[in-house]
């Protein structure tokens, strides 16, 4: 919304630096960027930031369900493990899974959307009906059905999160391609004898890249929530690997006595998702003002 008014002021600079300037001026977007960067630092530096082990049990009779205190900022869980440490290490799982899953869904969705949009006609109709049908099954039900049929490892969860989330990207990219298809530079490439594959990969997809990146950023939050929900239901990352959703679930049995076990991982999930959403909104406003009109 604000991006358009500022176009004039940023004349003479490149598209990217103008966008970056708009992004920097947006306080919410910068907050999101800082949160996300911080999370990646935490994930990488986890062993330095905490002296405890995320998986090994503590001295259970003495250490279980300790209240938050200076040694254990978020308290300890039923096995005497430090909740703060597990939250730190849990960020690795959430960030890795969400990043890979988004990558899968965005690449797959973009290719399918581009093929549908560029081919048109029958192929387009068939692909889009399949997209419609898959979107009619609520995400979590689709995920659960796949988990039930293909139960397995953490990588399988990544793949399933990816392949159950590509439909919206496909729809988005298809729309973009349709609007690009009639434009002169694509006609020129066709006139020069470029093949279908070359036009899609070299001309159409690069021109939809901003839209794709923005959509991907906005989707990461949703994937983190889906992974957390899956782990909460006991169908995601298997214990003892720390994952935020599963930590919330484990705290459930001692909710009244040890509220901290569930509370802190939940807050961190929310902060992470907010971070990605703010970042995505900011990127959209800064680099793709058309979306807003």
């Amino acid at each position, binding site marked *: 919304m604000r991006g358009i008014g500022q176009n004039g002021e940023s004349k003479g600079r490149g598209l990217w630096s103008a966008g970056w300037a708009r992004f920097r001026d947006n306080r919410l977007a910068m907050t999101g960027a800082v949160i996300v960067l911080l999370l990646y630092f935490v994930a990488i530096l986890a062993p330095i930031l905490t002296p405890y082990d995320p998986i090994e049990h503590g001295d259970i009779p003495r250490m279980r369900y300790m209240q938050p205190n200076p040694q254990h900022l978020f308290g300890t869980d039923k096995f005497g493990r430090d909740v703060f440490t597990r939250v730190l290490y849990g960020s690795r799982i959430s960030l890795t899974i969400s990043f890979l899953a988004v990558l899968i869904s965005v690449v797959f969705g973009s290719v399918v959307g581009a093929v549908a949009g560029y081919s048109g006609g029958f192929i387009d109709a068939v692909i889009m009906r*399949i997209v419609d049908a898959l979107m009619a*099954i609520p995400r979590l039900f689709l995920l659960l059905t796949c988990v039930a049929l293909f139960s397995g490892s953490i990588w399988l969860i990544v793949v399933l999160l990816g392949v159950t989330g590509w439909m919206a990207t496909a729809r988005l990219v298809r729309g973009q391609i349709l609007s690009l298809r009639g434009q002169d530079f694509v006609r020129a490439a066709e006139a020069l004898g470029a093949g279908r594959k070359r036009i899609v990969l070299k001309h159409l997809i690069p021109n939809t890249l901003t839209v794709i990146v923005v959509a991907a950023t906005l989707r990461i939050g949703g994937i983190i*929530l889906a992974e957390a929900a899956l782990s909460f239901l006991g169908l995601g990352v298997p214990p003892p690997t720390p994952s935020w959703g599963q930590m919330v679930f484990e705290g459930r049995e001692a909710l009244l006595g040890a509220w901290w076990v569930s509370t802190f991982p939940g807050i961190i999930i929310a902060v992470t998702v907010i971070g990605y959403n703010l970042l995505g909104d900011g990127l959209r406003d800064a680099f793709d003002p058309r979306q807003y009109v």
Partner: protein
Amino acid sequence: MLRFIAIRLVQSAVLVLIVLTITFFLLHLAPGDPMARYFHPDISPETVQMIKERLGLDKPLIEQYFRWIGSFIRGDFGVSLAYNVPVRSLLADAIPNTLRLTIAALLLHIVIGVALGIVSAARRYSFFDRFSTVAALFIYSIPSFWLGLMLILLFSLKLGVLPSSHMQSIGAEQLSGIALFADRIRHLVLPAFVLGIASAASIARYMRGSMLDVLREDYIRTARAKGLPEGAVFLKHALKNAAIPIVTIIGLSLPFLLGGAVVVEKIFSWPGMGRLTVDAIYARDYPVVLAVNFVVAFMVISGNLLADIGYALLDPRITLTRRGAGR
């Protein structure tokens, strides 16, 4: 108008068929003998072979496919492996419970969302507007299972004012009409709130945008110019038109509500389709999982169909252009 409804009906039926096809192929893509999932592991191989032949499971895949679709459309979803009863009877118990929860959440999120959206639009850029923008973002980002646990912790365990699970108290059957109703409402409050609040945030944002768009229209200027009080302009002229797109949004929020019900039902021990699915997955009860998947998709597709028809009925512009095109 009738033509429009007929076209949308056919489209929806095709979608249902595609959903069934996808489910069938998912079942066959999964490793292992797909039809083995439909038999209890304790049955001897000879018996399985006999049943397979009787059910036509030894026939070619394409024939199985049509039989499978035929039986699903007739509502025959096979037998639950965990409970050894027809899946249909499990669904008959679960569907009304999920609907009760989902409809309560739907009403809640429309009322909260529309009200907040209107106030935000009326007091644009005020503190309230900014606050609700940020609050919507937060609410949208909170995991529902966590919100549910926190509300249970606060309202059930600490304050003890609301029940934390099940649809009614133990022994509630003996209560009289009004007391039973009140008991059920009390059990409905927390789950419906958790399920509805995230969608309420997005409806509020949508309603705000829609109101602001409508307020720029010429007929609003006309209404103001003829001296109508601002309140009347707002509530009578603007709201009526701004609310029409909400019908579509309600249709679109159905998958989120039904999907969210999985987690909410699990937390609040609500005996609906979500909990049925999760328990079925724990028990490897494939017929139930696939049947619920189909029923939910069917509900979403029907919901969208109704929303589209409702939209066409409410918005005079759509019928006008349709009629114009027909002439």
